[in-house]
């Protein structure tokens, strides 16, 4: 089979290929979509611990005396005043309120920040930041090509991370690290960022490493976690894991023609803070009424509604499925859809390749996240 040859690799690409990773092009990278199989990998993260190579993500460091106020003026959530080590989830919007990307913003020091954006939007966000850069007071340093990113996710992730030799002296800090906080660490090849974040809905961490540390740390995690049942996890399971806990994925629930208020991430939009790009449009949308919303659908008929499937209310088009699959944990077909805000109950259906299949709106999310508190707490099911 022929594949584009100009795909970027990560420090772990050879490892993936040598260990059964099925490689696919993704946002300009060759990335593993699965190893053993999506269902087994999904269960591994929900029940034990899994490793993800997500080096494709973009890491843009921002520094300077003007960085804090400047970033705050470009993102929807409030980042001013947060303490060093704190992480904030954000959308970055166009003036009309459409979402350019969603991203994490880290405060690494008094005047040092890190923006982590999606690989698929990396070039766009770089360009947007450059375009909005003030004459002085703010410096950008895109370290994406030098930075590997390994996610360690699942109820046993804390146990596993504490076993890493390089973090032996800091195991107590790993133990105590709170959700959406991070610390920096001097690793063998340079500075690491150890971050209590993830995209699975499980207790987990993301390790930002210099490329030179990636393979050794990946292999050490697999070796030290053998008794825990650790396994490498591909992008397919990353998608089903985030889907079940209803985390937005850019290109699905988020797009340039969808506002964060419509996408259900209004909790990350602080309309009362000082002006930011998109604020006026979002204020207006809020006062006039948000026209669409993301809903959770259970497909009650037989079929799997996937992205792009039409949602019908009494036979009329009222929206489109943004993400849909068979939920490995709940073992039924589920979907998220962007629909007219007024739609709540009643005769709902999805068009699955020409067939009208019944569905119903259920409560959000499909599966509750276990990112805080006991990593093995009982789940609340809808």
């Amino acid at each position: 089979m022929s594949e584009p040859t100009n795909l970027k690799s990560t420090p772990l690409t050879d490892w993936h290929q040598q260990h059964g990773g099925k490689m696919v092009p993704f946002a300009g990278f060759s990335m593993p979509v699965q190893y053993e199989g999506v269902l087994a990998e999904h269960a591994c993260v929900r029940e034990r611990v899994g490793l993800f190579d997500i080096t494709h993500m973009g890491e843009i460091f921002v520094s300077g005396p003007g960085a804090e106020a400047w970033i705050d003026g470009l993102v929807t959530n409030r980042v001013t005043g947060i303490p060093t080590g704190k992480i904030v989830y954000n959308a970055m919007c166009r003036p009309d309120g459409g979402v350019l990307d969603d991203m994490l913003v880290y405060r690494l020091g008094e005047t040092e920040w890190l923006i982590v954006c999606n690989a698929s939007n990396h070039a766009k966000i770089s360009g947007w930041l450059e375009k909005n850069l003030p004459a002085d007071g703010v410096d950008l340093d895109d370290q994406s090509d030098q930075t590997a990113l390994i996610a360690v996710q699942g109820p046993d992730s804390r146990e596993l991370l504490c076993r890493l030799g390089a973090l032996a002296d800091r195991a107590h800090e790993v133990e105590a690290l709170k959700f959406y906080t991070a610390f920096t660490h001097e690793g063998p090849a340079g500075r690491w960022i150890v971050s209590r974040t993830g995209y699975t809905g499980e207790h987990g961490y993301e390790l930002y490493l210099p490329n030179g540390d990636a393979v050794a740390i990946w292999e050490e995690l697999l070796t030290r976690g053998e008794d825990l049942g650790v396994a490498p996890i591909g992008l397919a399971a990353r998608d089903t894991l985030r889907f079940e806990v209803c985390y937005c994925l850019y290109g699905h629930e988020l797009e340039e023609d969808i506002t964060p208020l419509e996408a259900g991430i209004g909790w990350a939009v602080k309309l009362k803070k000082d002006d930011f790009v998109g604020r006026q449009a979002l204020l207006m949308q809020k006062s006039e009424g948000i026209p669409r919303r993301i809903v959770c659908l259970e497909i009650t008929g037989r079929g799997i509604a996937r992205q792009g499937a039409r949602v019908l209310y009494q036979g009329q088009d009222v929206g489109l499925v943004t993400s849909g699959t068979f939920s490995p944990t709940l073992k039924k077909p589920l979907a998220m859809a962007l629909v007219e805000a007024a739609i709540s109950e009643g005769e709902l259906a999805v068009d699955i390749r020409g067939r009208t299949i019944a569905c119903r709106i259920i409560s959000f999310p499909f599966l509750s996240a276990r990112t805080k508190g006991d990593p093995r707490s009982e789940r609340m099911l809808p």
Partner: protein
Amino acid sequence: MVPDDRKYTQEHEWILIEDGVGMIGVTDFAAGELGDVVFVELPEPGSEFSQGDTVGTIESVKAVADLFLPVSGEIVEINEAVVDTPELVNSDPMDEGWLFKVKLSDISEADQLMDAAAYGELLGG
């Protein structure tokens, strides 16, 4: 190894013909390419189709594939086990993961299908 007791199609289905009735499934290769199968939609027994018709779908977590009828005829039986337990398509695609049976209306159509050697070549030897 590609079993030589049956015929194959370009769409990576197999058909095992006995007494004018063909048992149809997808090949090991197809099952591997699809990944974990979670949903199978099969034709109604008693319905009649022509060679090449789309008669159902097979869905994995990530992908949807159409099922094509390799030969014209009447659907005489479907594998209820695979409807209830779609993972049979992954665990045993060439035997217990069979999908449906068709009574051939023109037995000569089977001659147009690939034998094991030809299918092996399609898979790259």
